[in-house]
């Protein structure tokens, strides 16, 4: 025993040490990465972000250089704070606050100390930077929007937050990333790859030469330029028409699914989200919960589509063989079930066949047709499933799955939906007649309606609507070039298209005709309600219009949605016709119609629910007339706002 004490102790200590080494070097060792080694300084070289062009080759988004003052708190040494602050044009309190914040984020990782210096400030500061240990200047590219339109389309870039850094380690504090629009959905294409230089440093933070002779250094890969499908002239015109209104316009080229215009109202100048004021401006826009400028109404506004949905029911009925185009239905200002009027209708001739049913948008006709579809099957649930399947083949009721950064699925209810709502077999066609006229449970977004119009215009197929036209040196995703077919046979489309054509000829949009263009359309008027002080209150109806033109081989399919615009042809119909004329002819001949739109505002209408006073809606109101909205002087280069950083805050 006496001989063994030291021996055993030696063996024990040796094993404990080996275990400790195992713990430190093997078990606890996240795989070693140069990027995490704080003995190695990483110097990043940010590449140019890809430019964005519109479909006609017009440059929409370019870059401008910007210089951030970065800080690595651990490496900061006592400095002449007064001089530093005056160079950066910040106060000593700002200095302390920012310093504490970056230290709190990480003492050893760089974070932005003062963002976006102007070129002149940068020049002055660069000379003196050596004096301030722990600070350095990082060059990046900010966006330079050569246009004032399309904020919702183009999106913007902003600093990454910690959550993004944790999920995607490519990004470091202070890096910029696409936040909305195409900047978000094509981030990886536009961004390129930043170059990294690895430099060995010592404990005093001095550079002592490139790490391993620069073997691991990488060159920056520039971002790729992209061309988007937007026609900036059409987009601009759409935004002009949408002035003083809220709503969305989506125009699609049915022959390939390219989105020609994607307007949301109200919008904002994309240059607001460039530079030091970005965060302030973004909060202002984002927190505006009344007009919601950051809410893309063309993509995200999910509402009952109203009458345009009737054409889907007509197509389904023809496909299911429950109706003949010549079958007539009489309308007594509504649809009656026994003595009960299930739905009202407006004044028009009676009885109507399919053509007149569409052209006059007769509710009774479509409730009748819809009930025939459902009652054709013994089981209403089964019938609804078949019906929903048809409707969904038009891209309704689900995400379109495209390259836009936001979207909504809409809703097409099926049998299960009502089984859940009412109980198995405890409902029938009369419970759900609202679906016949696009009210009730059916919901869709403007882009879905535009796509539906495209599918009808194509007589039975559509391409997934998308915004990418060309990527430098790449081909676009094949899912945008393969047609998707609806479940309706081609032959059933002709009578429905004819009906939509007659909407313009003799129906609800007869006053909106554009000379020389055969437009097929469908008006819609959707009731809507809000809660004011927890009282459900009806507001003026939404004005909806869906169209495509020309009638054969259509070049444009469009959906317009104007909040509280009252009946379909009043605002949405006029705007759709003007957009079609603008796109096909390039100029406007119906200036009377354009004048009307530009001189009428809905702002009064929107203010009503917030006025706190009782108000009238629909026909009992008068429309606000304003001075004609002028087309903004779009000198594109002057329009882009150059960053003027380092201007002390006015307050």
């Amino acid at each position, binding site marked *: 025993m006496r001989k063994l*004490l*030291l021996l055993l102790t*030696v*063996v024990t*200590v*040796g094993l404990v040490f080996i275990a400790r080494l195992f713990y*430190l070097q093997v078990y606890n*060792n996240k795989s070693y990465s140069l990027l995490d080694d704080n*003995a190695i300084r990483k110097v990043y070289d940010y590449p140019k972000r890809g430019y964005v062009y519109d479909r006609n080759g017009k440059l929409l988004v370019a870059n401008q250089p910007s210089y951030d003052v970065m800080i690595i708190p651990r490496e900061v040494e006592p400095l002449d704070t007064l001089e530093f602050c005056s160079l950066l044009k910040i106060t000593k309190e700002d200095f302390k606050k920012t310093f504490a914040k970056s230290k709190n984020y990480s003492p050893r990782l760089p974070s932005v100390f003062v963002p976006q210096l102007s070129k002149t400030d940068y020049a002055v500061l660069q000379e003196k930077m050596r004096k301030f240990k722990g600070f350095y200047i990082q060059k990046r590219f900010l966006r330079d929007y050569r246009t004032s339109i399309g904020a919702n389309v183009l999106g913007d870039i902003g600093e990454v937050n910690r959550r993004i850094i944790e999920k995607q380690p490519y990004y470091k504090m202070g890096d910029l990333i696409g936040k909305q629009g195409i900047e978000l959905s094509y981030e990886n294409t536009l961004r390129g790859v930043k170059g990294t230089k690895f430099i060995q440093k010592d404990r005093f933070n001095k550079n*002592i030469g490139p790490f391993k002779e620069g073997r691991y250094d990488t060159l920056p890969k520039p971002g790729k330029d992209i061309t988007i499908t937007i026609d900036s002239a059409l987009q601009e015109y759409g935004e002009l028409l949408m002035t003083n209104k809220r709503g969305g316009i989506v125009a699609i080229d049915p022959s390939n699914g390219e989105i020609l215009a994607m307007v949301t109202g109200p919008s904002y100048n994309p240059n607001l989200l460039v530079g030091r004021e970005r965060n302030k401006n973004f909060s202002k826009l984002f927190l505006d919960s009344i007009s919601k400028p950051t809410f893309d109404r063309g993509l995200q506004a999910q509402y009952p589509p109203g009458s345009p949905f009737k054409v889907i029911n007509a197509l389904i009925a023809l496909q299911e063989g429950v109706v003949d185009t010549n079958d007539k239905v009489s309308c007594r200002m509504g649809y009656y079930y026994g003595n009960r009027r299930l739905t009202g209708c407006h004044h028009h001739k009676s009885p109507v066949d399919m053509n007149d049913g569409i052209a006059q948008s007769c509710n009774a006709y479509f409730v009748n047709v819809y009930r025939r579809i459902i009652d054709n099957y013994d089981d209403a649930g089964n019938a609804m499933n078949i019906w929903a399947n048809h409707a969904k083949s038009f891209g309704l009721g689900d995400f379109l799955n495209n390259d836009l950064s936001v979207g909504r699925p809409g809703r097409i209810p099926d049998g299960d939906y009502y089984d859940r709502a009412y109980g198995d077999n405890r409902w029938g066609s009369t419970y759900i007649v609202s679906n016949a006229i696009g009210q009730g449970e059916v919901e869709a977004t403007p882009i879905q309606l535009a796509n539906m119009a495209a599918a009808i215009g194509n007589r039975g197929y559509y391409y997934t609507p998308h915004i990418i036209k060309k990527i430098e040196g790449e081909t676009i995703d094949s899912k945008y070039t393969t047609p998707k077919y609806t479940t309706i046979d081609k032959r059933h489309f002709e009578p429905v298209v004819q009906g939509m054509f007659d909407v313009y000829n003799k129906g609800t949009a007869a006053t909106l005709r554009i000379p020389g263009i055969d437009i097929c359309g469908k008006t819609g008027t959707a009731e809507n309600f809000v809660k004011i002080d927890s009282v459900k209150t009806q507001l003026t109806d939404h004005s909806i219009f869906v169209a495509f033109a020309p009638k054969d081989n259509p070049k444009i399919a469009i959906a317009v949605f104007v909040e509280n615009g009252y009946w379909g042809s009043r605002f949405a119909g006029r705007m759709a016709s003007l957009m079609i004329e603008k796109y096909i002819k390039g100029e406007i001949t119906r200036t009377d119609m354009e004048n009307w739109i530009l001189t009428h505002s809905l702002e009064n209408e929107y203010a009503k629910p917030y006025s706190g006073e009782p108000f009238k809606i629909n026909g009992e109101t008068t429309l606000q007339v304003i001075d004609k909205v002028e087309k903004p002087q779009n000198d594109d280069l002057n329009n882009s706002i150059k960053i003027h950083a380092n201007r002390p805050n006015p307050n």
Partner: protein
Amino acid sequence: MYRENHRGFRFDWITIVLFLLLVGFGWLNILSASHEGEIVSYFDMSQLYGKHLVFIGLTLVLIVIILSLEAKFYERFASIIYITAMLALVGLFIFGKDVNGARSWYGIGSMTIQPSEFAKFATALALAKYMSDLQTNMNTLKDQLRAVAIIIVPAVLILLQNDAGSTLVYASFFFVFYREGLQQIYLIIALSTIILAVLALKFGLIATTIVAAIVLVAIYFFRRKKRVSIVQSVIILLVCVSFSAGVKLFYNHVLQPHQQNRISLWLRLEKDPVLLEKMKKEEAYNLIQSEEAISSGGVFGKGFLQGTRTKGKFVPEQETDYIFSTVGEEWGFLGSTMVVILFMALIIRILYLAESQKSQFSRVYGYGVASVFFIHFTINTGMVMGLIPTVGIPLPFFSYGGSGLWGFTILLFIFVKLDSNKINEW
């Protein structure tokens, strides 16, 4: 291993090979830790690795001298060597030179010599001489105290020179005492003091008292034959409690703040995150850097001369006390485990040889050598990998420095010489 009749090859070659491996590998790591810029020549005397290479060269001369002397010389002159070493330590108070607050060096021109490195083998020799004396009986208190005195003298002198780390080395001679017949009870007392001290600092007096009481009650019931009386147990308990209280007082009032901090960090006593952060910054910078360097080595290491932290000189004093972190970073788990195994092999080999000695002098001396290497290895490596509070002592054969290298070489090779002579003993 032993070839009679051929003087030159009776040495234990296993020990010598282990020694050469450690010194050689040590030098590679000093090269890595100390070089700045391009390595022009390995003999570049302006660089530490160049100097150390010269020290190694001189070491070889030293070895030849040690091995060529008569084995009996060391036994006969043990007292004189010891007294000379003690005088050298005393002389420091008059002629010594302060480096980093410790008065441990003689300065001769640009050279410095650290006598405490040489006091170790002198003490081991003197202890061996005393214990192997026929008149010495290690079972008697008087002789035990005399033996302790041999150790206490250099320990106190070195402590007075403010080199607490080197003082600790002398505690390792406890293993020698125990081997040579120190009563069992001292081992129990030694272990108990360590456990009590840690318990008192970490969990406080009340918890320590409860633990001590439970252990004593257990002993009372399990040792039926030679039962200690209740009065005795209570007295032991009181001693334990007052010892614990003493440890607390010592910690709070005698230790210097930096020593308190080291212990506090080791036992994780500080709970306030702000103070802890401050403490880490002040006291644990080396430790954190060294642990990070070791961890970053991974399984295979970054390769010789490729350690980024070593290159950037992130670990202060890396070529001396923190040399093991270079091994960890550049040679990884495999390399550092190798070093641990080499040290274990060396110590176990010495122990094996010591047990096989016929002369008690050689055996005691061999035990002393093993104990000194063991404590140096344990404290240094344990500290660098964060298992033991920071104590500044070098890693034998690895750390840069002439005095240290020579001190350890003499310590080891006197034993190699003694061992080679065992054939002549009877």
